[in-house]
């Protein structure tokens, strides 16, 4: 890692800013992905360990068919909507942080 040059010796280019930036973004993405993956990995497990439950008929559909064929789509829309709201808020927060620390300097 080269030492910061004079032009880069400020808040935006500091190591700590990049670290907090990446950590917070990754944290948000990973928590959204985890919600999605629990459902995606969980469904085959339910099919495997609770076949009778998943074969329950709901208005003609099996429960498993209804979840995978229809309900899974809106579930993912909700996750993506929450992610977008939070990531926009996060970017605004990052900008404010830069502004504040520039004023302090």
């Amino acid at each position, binding site marked *: 890692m080269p030492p910061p040059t004079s032009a880069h010796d400020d808040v935006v280019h500091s190591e700590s800013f*990049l670290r907090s*930036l990446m950590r917070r973004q990754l944290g948000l993405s990973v928590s959204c992905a985890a919600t999605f993956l629990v459902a*995606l990995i969980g469904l085959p497990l339910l099919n495997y360990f609770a076949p009778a439950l998943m*074969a329950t008929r709901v208005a*003609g*559909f099996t429960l498993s068919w209804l979840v995978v064929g229809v309900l899974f789509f*809106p579930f*993912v829309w909700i996750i993506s909507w929450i992610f977008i709201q939070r990531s*926009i808020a996060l970017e605004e927060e990052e900008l404010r942080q830069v502004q504040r620390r520039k004023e302090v300097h």
Partner: protein
Amino acid sequence: MTASFAFLGGVDPWIFTFSFITVVVTIGMGFWSARRSKTASDFFVAGRSVSVGWNASAISGEYLSAASFMGVAGMVMSSGYDALWYPVCYACGYLFLLLFIAGPLRRFGAYTIPDFAEGRYDSPVFRKIAVVFVLFIGFFYTMPQMKGAGVTLAYIFPGMPYWGGVVLVGAVITFNVALGGMKGITLVQAFQYWAKMFAISVPVFVLMAVFGFYNGHLAETSAPTSPAVDVASVARKPLVEKAPTDASWISPFGPLTTKAVTAAAAARPAEERAAFLAEHQRSYSLLYTYSLIMALVCGTAGLPHILVRFYTNPDGVAAKRTTMWVMILIGVFYVFPPIFGVLGRNLLPELYAATGAKGTDKIVLELPRIINERYGVWGSVMSGITCAGAFAAFMSTFSGLLVSMTGALAHDVYGRMLRPHAKPAERLLAFKVSAVVVGAVAIILGTGVEQLQINFMVGQAFAIAAASYFPLLFMSVWWRGMTMKGAATGMLGGGLAALACTTVINLSDLKKVDLNAFWAAHPLARILCEQPAIWTVPLAIGLMIVVSKLTAEQVPADIRMKMLVLHAPETLGLKQEYIQEHIQEHIGASH
């Protein structure tokens, strides 16, 4: 003269008319748009001025191929529940793209994956390695489009052989691309989405109104001994012998995922079969399911022709909103194809008995025609609409793939590797020659895959993308310790392993190589070869980490700046700063 037009016998005029109009409109719009956008940068600049709604429609229009329009329905009909993972993951894979890749890549400002590979590692060499997978993934993606063309033409012209349709459609689109038509601009692609959406949904609603609803048809598949389901009953035709039983069709771990173990059991002595099935069948099909899910979810995030479109957004926030709208648009679309599969099982089971171009892959085209039994020509009209949608699907995807593969061949292979100092006229000629070469190879491959399912082949393209481009993008964006050597080793290791496996499976299924005895002895090997993502994706990521650690001193010197450009909000203006520094470095180096 009459003999040469013999294949025109038995053509339904309604179906022919709708299909013909679609072809003319598609080609016409291609040339109209090509006149309006002369260069690649025009295409991007024009795109940047459009709204989120248009852009999301355009991405969806580009994405929905013959696999989505015809293949999903065909596979749900033939395999039942397990095939539902395909539409779900085709749509939900965009979530991974949104969460991990879309924003950073948009900020970095690389237009294609090879651009990104070069910019992230300052390595023109790596670009040349990365571009190879545009061609690999592209050819695997064109094969099912070609099958879609062969199936559709064989349906419209009952006398035409499968290969005839492949050659005809392939040749028309290839020459169209070579002549400069078919440059996708936002408006044309967006129109394609709404055309496909109309063509899949309207016939479904009409069919359900006439023959009973989705849930009613699914209820028919429950065993007669189970308690009666409180749904209006529907009429059903008797299943043919080759169709899977209701119990295996409606439940998870059915014919698709248990095929390998069933074949292995059949090769064993009769007294061992039951024990072998009990031991392996369900556990192996769980493995198959997970590997399939992994290939589709990761593969969506690594498809070269989709990522390009994210730069037509004005900024990162619009890019994210666009991704969400894409998920909504294609999610709504993907509810419909499985309905065709379910209705098809009950109303047109004859298709189970046929194979290739006459098999279940044509259910979307043929099913609406049964409305003719009750309401005159309306069935033909509906069937004409789905045929038109199928044409829109495979023509738009095939020409999009052809443009990007031709670009890779003409721009990267010829323009950068073979003849870096070629004149503009030579480059134009190279583009035309490349288009014809790529088109010809795609046609030859397409004529050979009649016996493979459309949806299955597209799944293979996803598996290759999942093991090559997805690890490259994911790791390059989130791990600053990656070196060019690490990235290249991982991408080649994972991607080529997936490529080799899928090729072996196809050669074996097409009976070019006889591996049946081997597969029967080793069903697990068959599953890991048929759905390789579960081991090739970790292999690629593992190789990237190990080799990058070994070559840690070769991490690009300005990695912190690159990471800032990838992750910091765009309003901080780091991208402009980064570009200026690069220009200064180049001037400094040349002096």
